[in-house]
């Protein structure tokens, strides 16, 4: 039942298509005008984390897989890209590519093992692997431990696009973000995405229909790792450093919070959530450790009373898909 319905839904109605196009247009418009109203640096950071949240949401929102160690993909790509740009002297696009490749490899290995485990263990396995990556990053010489990799050069993308120019960097980051966003959206709306959702609805039935659930889930996991890596690598170029925080448990927690607040299972939810959480962090930085507590309280409040998140709530009331 769910499978047929899912496949039918893949042919989006024209209303959905219109809403989708309008929403995307708004997103692009906001990105274009944002640097005139807020610090470009802040907006770029927000875009990186928004992409990270989109990657996380791909897993939780459409495959029902809760990854509590997603920072390992974000942070590893961040470190590898920073190292590639600074020590190997690669130009930005190549450096990002190397970072993404590292995340993809890590995603494949950890995903293959995590997905084998019975459902309840999945989140625990992601925590365990994430901690392992953290320990490795603490010990590995190339990460410089507590100091992290500093002064990452921004260089010239593809040899001629000068990223040290803040406006050009902004455009570059915006393009990367929108590209990643569209990849996620396309994946979810494709037949692959519909099968993924069918597996989420009723796995035994999907399997009986011949779909290899494990392979689909692994593919989703690796894609999520790749996009998270893309976000992390780009972040390394934007803030020009990579540090242990990027692979830490708190970063894993933050991306969950962003997605929850914004709306799990929606496209724009993670983006909105990332914006809010980053703004909250900047605004509340003066309160020091209270930020974590406030985040935790917001988290719990959302789980108890606001499960659909901001965008989810909006979408439900307007009866559209966002």
């Amino acid at each position, binding site marked *: 039942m769910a499978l047929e319905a899912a496949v039918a839904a893949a042919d989006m109605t024209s209303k959905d298509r219109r809403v989708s196009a309008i929403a995307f247009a708004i997103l692009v418009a906001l990105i274009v005008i944002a640097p005139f109203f807020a610090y470009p640096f802040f907006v770029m950071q927000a875009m990186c984390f928004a992409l990270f949240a989109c990657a996380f949401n791909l897993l939780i929102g459409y495959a029902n897989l*809760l990854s509590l160690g997603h920072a390992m993909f974000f942070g590893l790509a961040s470190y590898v890209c920073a190292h590639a740009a600074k020590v190997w002297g690669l130009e930005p696009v190549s450096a990002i590519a190397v970072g993404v490749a590292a995340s993809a490899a890590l995603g494949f290995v950890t995903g293959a093992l995590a997905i084998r485990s019975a459902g309840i263990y999945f989140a625990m396995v992601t*925590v365990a692997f994430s901690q392992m990556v953290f320990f490795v990053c603490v010990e590995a010489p190339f990460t410089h431990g507590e100091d992290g990799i500093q002064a990452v050069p921004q260089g010239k993308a593809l040899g001629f696009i000068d990223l040290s120019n803040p406006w050009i960097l902004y455009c570059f980051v915006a393009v990367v973000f929108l590209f990643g966003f569209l990849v996620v959206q396309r994946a979810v709306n494709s037949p692959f995405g519909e099968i993924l959702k069918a597996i989420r609805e009723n796995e035994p039935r999907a399997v009986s229909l011949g779909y290899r659930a494990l392979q689909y889930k692994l593919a989703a996991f690796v894609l999520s790792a790749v996009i998270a890596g893309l976000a992390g690598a780009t972040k390394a170029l934007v803030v020009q450093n990579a540090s242990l925080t990027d692979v830490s448990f708190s970063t894993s*927690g933050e991306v969950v919070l962003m997605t929850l607040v914004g709306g799990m299972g929606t496209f724009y939810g993670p983006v909105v959530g990332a914006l809010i959480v980053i703004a909250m962090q900047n605004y509340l930085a003066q309160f020091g*450790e209270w930020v974590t507590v406030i985040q935790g309280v917001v988290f719990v409040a959302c789980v108890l009373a606001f499960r659909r998140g901001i965008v989810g709530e909006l979408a439900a009331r307007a009866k559209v898909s966002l």
Partner: protein
Amino acid sequence: MGPAVNIFGHAISMPQLYGQLLIGLINGSFYALLSLGLAVIFGMLTIVNFAHGAFYMMGAFAAYFLLQYTGLNYWFALILAPLIVGAIGAVVERLFLKRLAGFDPLYSLLLTFGLALIIQGLFQNFYGASGMPYAIPKQLTGAYNLGFMFLPVYRGWVIVASAVVCFATWLIIEKTKLGAYLRAATENPTMVRAFGINVPRMVTLTYGFGVALAAFAGVLAAPINQVRPGMGADIIAVVFAVVVIGGMGSILGSIVTGFVLGVVEGLTKVFYPEASNTVVFVIMAIVLLIRPTGLFGRAA
């Protein structure tokens, strides 16, 4: 310098070996207590309690507060801290987790995760990242000379106390009527309710008990590991790995896996120190390859 052993090219002295084995057993004690608590909670609530590390930390802090503000010493703390923290756990279950009982278990998981953030953030706020000291109780200071090694009394106590509590818990669950109620409610809660038993209350108390076990481990840890807000987060990832390796199908399995992996970790520290942080995770990866439901787990 005692007699030396040559293994894999490392020259190890026997006292060093025994010393690390001891530390391994101690860590194993904590792993066993914590994974036991997780297994008990999972059996009844079918959720993984991501706040478990935070409650462990609260247990240690409770011991510290009791000493600091009421002068009640370690021996009182051993009983009071689990009771207090367990009560807090029961309240959490009643107020929050129960509300989410009908929904996707995902939300309960997220809730415990968020709780961990709050609890840890709160303590980090007031006590920073550094630790508060907690002295070994007078009666347990000193060491026994066993001939082949010195055994610090407190460390011996930790191992014995953990083993006793773990065994007692196993006994209660497997051999008593109360345990029968627990096992039956784990298997078929609706039917147990149909016999007139207030299962929701049992669930609340079970969560409280699991949390109390974590807090007990925290009190045991306080004199050894210092009382730090980060102590729960530091240990929880390894405990999760232990649980995945053991599987949550068997109470005894969780206990055994905990102790054994602690020893394995200790031995790794002797022969291959660089890997000691990650050896448990590597074992987890291997177990996932050959037996995904865990060594003692029941296939779903």
